[in-house]
């Protein structure tokens, strides 16, 4: 077991989980719902990046960065659209109804990407109108069920740090961890010092009181979804660069794991999401290298959740909920 690589990989994938977990935790804390579809926004983000980065007129060194921006913006818009169309009318509905709707949205995203987006007409639109070229003769569909990889697009080897002959910290890992820390810091500053951030905090504490104070609930929740989805886009790109293959179902597993990470850290808490994500990533990588069979890794990872909840029923940094009697 190479402890260094376990740590590096652990922090790396853990950072990705943390970024996704932040989206879950913010939406849960503020809109009081579990956005099951969050994981699939990751997938959409990665696909958007993939398509954009392959666009003919985005060549050059700035190309990938612009593609990242496009992915972020598009996902933010997607998140806002989902909130408006599916969740807004269910604000007063029982949480089971909301959860089921979220599940519906999740499947919708997966299947649209698999079926609708790979339809001939749509594909040709992207290739001819938007100038997306993904291969030599460009005959394979851009979206759809077959696997894509984005490793060639996100080549960070120039940033590698060579600690010794045998030990290299991959540039991608550095970037991932750095991005995560930056996001957490920015988000904390945003939530604590800006007006919108304070609005978000007050809505998460007491929605009706916030409304009475004149805070626009709709706008606050929309912003929350936008931020969460934007983060999801970033996470999606980093996740696929890890590397993982990109298919319509790519987002579900990291989505579930990040969700579990958010709960471990205490859902509704931003530092909790960070801790939960890193912890989960580390445990996962550790198990993978230690256990005889890789399939058992999941068993260990999910057991962490149960163990944590046994001792701290609302997560590591979660708030204790006192029911008024």
């Amino acid at each position, binding site marked *: 077991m190479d402890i260094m690589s376990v740590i590096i990989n652990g922090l790396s994938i853990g950072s990705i989980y943390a970024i996704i977990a932040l989206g879950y935790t913010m939406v849960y804390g503020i809109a009081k719902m*579990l956005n099951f579809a969050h994981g699939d926004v990751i997938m959409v983000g990665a696909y958007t990046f993939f398509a954009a980065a392959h666009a003919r007129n985005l060549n050059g060194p700035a190309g990938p960065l612009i593609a990242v921006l496009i992915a972020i913006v598009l996902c933010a818009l997607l998140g806002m659209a989902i909130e408006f169309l599916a969740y807004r009318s269910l604000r*007063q509905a029982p*949480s089971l109804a909301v959860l*089921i709707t979220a599940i519906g949205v999740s499947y919708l995203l*997966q*299947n*649209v990407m698999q079926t609708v987006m790979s339809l001939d007409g749509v594909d040709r639109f992207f290739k001819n109108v938007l100038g997306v070229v993904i291969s030599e003769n460009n005959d394979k569909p851009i979206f759809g069920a077959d696997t894509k990889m984005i490793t060639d697009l996100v080549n960070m080897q120039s940033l590698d740090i060579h600690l010794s002959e045998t030990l290299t910290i991959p540039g991608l890992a550095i970037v991932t961890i750095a991005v995560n820390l930056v996001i957490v810091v920015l988000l904390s500053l945003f939530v604590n010092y800006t007006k919108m951030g304070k609005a978000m905090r007050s809505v998460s504490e007491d929605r009706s009181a916030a409304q009475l104070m004149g805070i626009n609930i709709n706008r606050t929740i929309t912003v929350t979804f936008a931020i969460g989805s934007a983060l999801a886009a970033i996470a999606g790109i980093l996740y696929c660069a890890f590397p993982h293959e990109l298919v319509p179902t790519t987002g579900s597993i990291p989505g579930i794991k990040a969700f579990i990470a958010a709960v471990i850290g205490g859902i509704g808490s931003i530092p909790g999401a960070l801790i939960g994500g890193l912890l989960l990533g580390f445990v996962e990588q550790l198990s993978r290298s230690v256990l005889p*069979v890789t399939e058992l890794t999941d068993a260990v990872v999910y057991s962490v959740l149960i163990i944590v909840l046994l001792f701290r029923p609302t997560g590591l940094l979660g708030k204790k909920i006192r029911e008024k009697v």
Partner: protein
Amino acid sequence: MQYDHAVIGQMSRSRRSFSPKARHILYKTATFLLVTAAFVFLYDWLTQGPLSGILNMEDISRKTKGYFVPICAWVVAAVSLNLVVGFSGELSLGHAGFMSIGYSTGIVVYNLLTKGYGWENIYLSMAVTLAVSGLLAGIVGFLVGIPVLRLRGDYLAIVTLACAEIIKSLLQCFYVALDTSEGAKLLFAFPKNTLNGSGITMLLKGPTASAPIGTKGTTTDLPALYIISFALVILTLLVVFNLTDSRTGRAIKSTRDNRIAAESMGIPVTRHKMIAFVTAAVLAGMSGALLANKSTYQPANFNLDMSIMVLVYVVLGGLGNVMGTIFSTTALYILPEELRFMKDYRMLVYALVLIFAMVLSNNPVIKRWFTSFTSLFRRKHSITLFAEESRNAYAGSKDVLADRTSEPLVVEEEALSDTKAALPVLEDRVAEAEPAAVDAEAGIQPAAADTKAEDKDIFTMLYTADGTPLDEESMRRIQVGLMLYDAYGDIEIGDVTEMKQRKEENKKKGRKKDKKSGKKGGGKA
């Protein structure tokens, strides 16, 4: 809002309908009859028996043959999940985990019995298989329940998900083989497959799919399987109905409705949630074992997607509604099979159905529209309108009430949202009012206290506790409410003067009145 003390009698002279208790018994009986009828019909069709001869039915197609057993299995799975979600009020996202255990156990036990011990009677073998699978799943359910059931709401859901994933993960490393060289022995290996040698048959092959029961070495026992599936469904119905309509069932339902209140009544909440949970796990295990006949699954198939699929069956069938679950499961199983194109787009359609079903059923505007629309077709129920009733019910009318009171439909205060709808009806009613009936403007004249019961119409049966007639104001309000119920199946309790005022204001604002013409004349005479 002040009402005098009175017990208000029923509204319309509708046909006698059943009491809620009777209706429930009817519901349960209908469920049993439905399942039995379906079985009899399909079995007969399968075996080309007398019934299909009479109905002149062709030989059953291979595809249709293959429906009954899986549908029964999914029905059992869905109804058992309904026990947890609908009756116990807890969201379980890990139901597939219990099915998975049942599936794997089923394969092992059945092969052991038939190939190992040489049992030939399929009924006996399946019965033992189902029992053992259910038992094992139940034990796992109990173990899972210990950490899970002390959590609340969303946390509980996540942990059930985690547990199902753990089960999946462990089963993927589980290898079982049957050694028939000297007698029958089961060989186990975990986590790596160390089993080899001739004379052994691999039963559970870790992550890869296991051979379903009944393919090699046994004849197609489809008719027997039909009977077994039917028996399992009937067993499930018996268990669920008998459990929920009992002291334990009520306790379970109370923990759903209000946890603290249940505890304060001396009901141990965790224990009762555990009862529901473990029972559901046992049934799910049995359904998994049933699925092992002819269906090929690998442990990875029993994942979140499957748990959600069963959850969808339950939600669309109605939480707490067993018959509804049977219908929704059957429909959602058959439809993708029958509609070819739907197979590719199946999940897409599921997704859209889910979203629309949830959004539409929880949208207040649509709810109101639906209520007013269906009131046109709704049978008139006898209603008992409550208005701060006192315990000194007026004795005279009581007998008449007892005679006719069927389902007392009491006003739900939350349902009364909009008075806008009330005003046009009031207008219509006033216009259509029969002379002997009520007149919203003038108020109504209550009958004298010695009027015979049969001669009293509803409005004359209103008296205060000490026998004096109600005052006009209260009568008017009550009568308005009843007329609105007549039109909408919904009630607005309010002040007539107030409503008229509001109507004036609305007129000024030039809002479009939704003119809804209800049917019968107001005020049954």
